[in-house]
């Protein structure tokens, strides 16, 4: 029983990290084909927004996190209006532009907040099971990541907005001819992506050291998960994150962290080699 729970906890912990790291990137890349190299900095903004509102404005943690997400949305909105909207249909240019944005943002954080900022204490307590003790907050993170995925699934695949968004992505000209406000759909989708990245930063902020490079800790996991998820991230994200976290946790528990990371990256290479369109490609093929 304890063994089962322990296995579930470790797997769930790795899974939620991959899912939350990737989700904002997946929305922006999957829906808009913008490769957002500033994804890590969106997470940084969410984290700093949370910590600063909790420390300086003395807000309770959930409200501070909400603030963190709001600030990230505002940043995403401004960015989309000024820069990103000129880059639709130019994925390679978007790489260069967002990379520049990421440098500017991380250096600005360094200048404004200095190399380190006092962090928050992880909320909730811990509980004991046999020889092991667990953080309740991290258990909550697993639940939150699954809830977010369900909400997104409903939003993009079942709601009216989702239909408009997918139509816009599929063929902007025709969607526009049918009366869809393409511009608005893009802006909203980008803001949703920003909000998700900000949320990741906000909920991980109490568990990590607050430094201007905090978002960089997520970036490799994020890209790796999105790449293995494939062209349609909503279908591919869960199987990709599940597979990768299974690989990582089983190898890490058998050997150690370095080999675990190697196993994760190696399985990514295998997937790209044998499933070039990722897990979503595989699932679509199976459906047919």
């Amino acid at each position: 029983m304890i063994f089962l729970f322990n296995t579930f906890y470790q797997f769930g912990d790795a899974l939620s990290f991959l899912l939350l790291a990737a989700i904002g990137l997946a929305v922006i890349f999957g829906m808009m084909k913008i490769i957002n190299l500033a994804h890590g900095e969106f997470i940084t903004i969410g984290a700093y927004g949370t910590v600063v509102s909790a420390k300086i404005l003395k807000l309770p943690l959930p409200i501070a996190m909400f603030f963190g997400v709001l600030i990230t949305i505002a940043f995403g909105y401004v960015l989309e209006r000024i820069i990103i909207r000129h880059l639709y249909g130019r994925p390679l240019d978007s790489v260069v532009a967002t990379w520049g944005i990421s440098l500017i943002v991380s250096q600005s954080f360094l200048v404004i907040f200095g190399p380190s900022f006092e962090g928050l204490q992880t909320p909730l307590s811990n509980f004991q099971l046999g020889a092991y003790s667990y953080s309740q907050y991290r258990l909550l993170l697993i639940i939150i990541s699954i809830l977010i995925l369900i909400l997104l699934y409903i939003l993009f695949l079942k709601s009216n907005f989702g239909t408009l968004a997918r139509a816009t992505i599929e063929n902007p000209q025709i969607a526009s001819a049918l009366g869809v406000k393409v511009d608005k759909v893009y802006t909203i989708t980008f803001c949703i992506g920003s909000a998700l990245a900000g949320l990741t930063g906000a909920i991980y902020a109490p568990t990590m050291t607050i430094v201007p490079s905090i978002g960089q800790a997520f970036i490799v996991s994020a890209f790796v998960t999105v790449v293995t998820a494939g062209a349609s991230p909503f279908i591919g994200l869960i199987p990709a994150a599940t597979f990768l976290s299974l690989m990582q946790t089983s190898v890490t528990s058998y050997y150690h962290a370095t080999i675990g990371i190697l196993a994760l990256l190696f399985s990514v290479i295998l997937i790209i080699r044998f499933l070039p369109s990722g897990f979503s490609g595989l699932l679509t093929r199976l459906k047919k």
Partner: protein
Amino acid sequence: MIKKILLSFLFAVLLFGGNTVSAQTIKLGILEDQTGNFAIAVVPKIHAYEMAVKEINAKGGVLGRKLEIVRYDTQSDNTRFQEFARRLIEKDKVDVIFGAFSSASREAIRPIIDKAGMLYFYNNQYEGGVCDANVFVTGAVPEQQFSTLVPWMMEKYGKKVYTIAADYNFGQISAEWVRNIVKQNGGTMVGEEFIPLDVSQFSQTIKKIQAAKPDVLMTLLVGAKQASFYEQQASAGLKIPMATSVNVGQAYEHKRFKPPALENMFVTVNYIEEVHDVIKSGEFHDKSKDFVKRFRALYPKEPYINMESANAYNAINLYVKAVAKAGSTDKVKVRKALETGISFDGPSGVVKIDPKSHHGSHNIFLVRVGKDHKVEIPKVWKDIQPYWLGQSGCDLTKKDDFSQYTPSKPPKK
């Protein structure tokens, strides 16, 4: 032709020799990371160099010459270190170089220093083992930080030890030291994990530690990402006493992190600014109080005065004492003077340079971090020698060497 050469020689003598020697400053090159990854721990160190130079100049300098700092910001970047080391040697023609925080940056410039025969002070705690004719070390080494800490922890908490360490030369070599000391003291290593610098999530590591049930956890973690371990182990309720050589004394994590993330962490340091708050009277109290007072007078906003600032301060003073003794800034003469067992009475007492290995002796303070992140000092070891290199066969007074050794790869006898 000969006449021409003689003439130009005469001209050169008139031009350069004309300046009286006493008017020339002694140039101290400083390479430290004012920005970048390591800046938190390094900025107080830079201020300590400046303070030492100001104090010495206020007393008239040495040999009638003033000291002058030539400083470059190495930005926590090893290629910058190499670039600026060359610049200090070739363009600025400094008399001595001080600096470097990480072992990687020290190893990046050591070959350049050795090629030029430059005199170099490394003023940082590190994994030990540098036996180099041109290099002097004022920071603490494993025989000072681990030979004290590990047996003390084992006696107090038990003989089962688990090490987690950053996966690069510092972590690997330090872990090797811990392993050897645990064995020598009749303990067992119940686990050892090397963690890449990029890792920021530690749930699995924490579970592995709990499964192994150690009495003592050695945390040799480095960098901002790995520092997330402390908050995560506290929230998981790990509650195993932690011991390390790197935290508190360098980047003052006990001031920067929210309590109680570092509760029950033990660190061995050769100085921290709380020494005189905790030790209420005696030599250590007076010296630390005096040092902090002078430091704060110059830099009132300094967030923390760490052990590397004491090491930097000592380094400049040791160099100046050696120059006075040698009666010259000639590098060979100064090195010989430094090899006479020269010592300086600094912020935490006397630091004496071991002639064989060029490393300094230290008084070592055991620091315990409390629940509210206030520090206690349960134990002080006086005058701990950097004995390992000398005992293993490094003797720079007899034979030049330019290598770094480890316990598993000692000098050839």
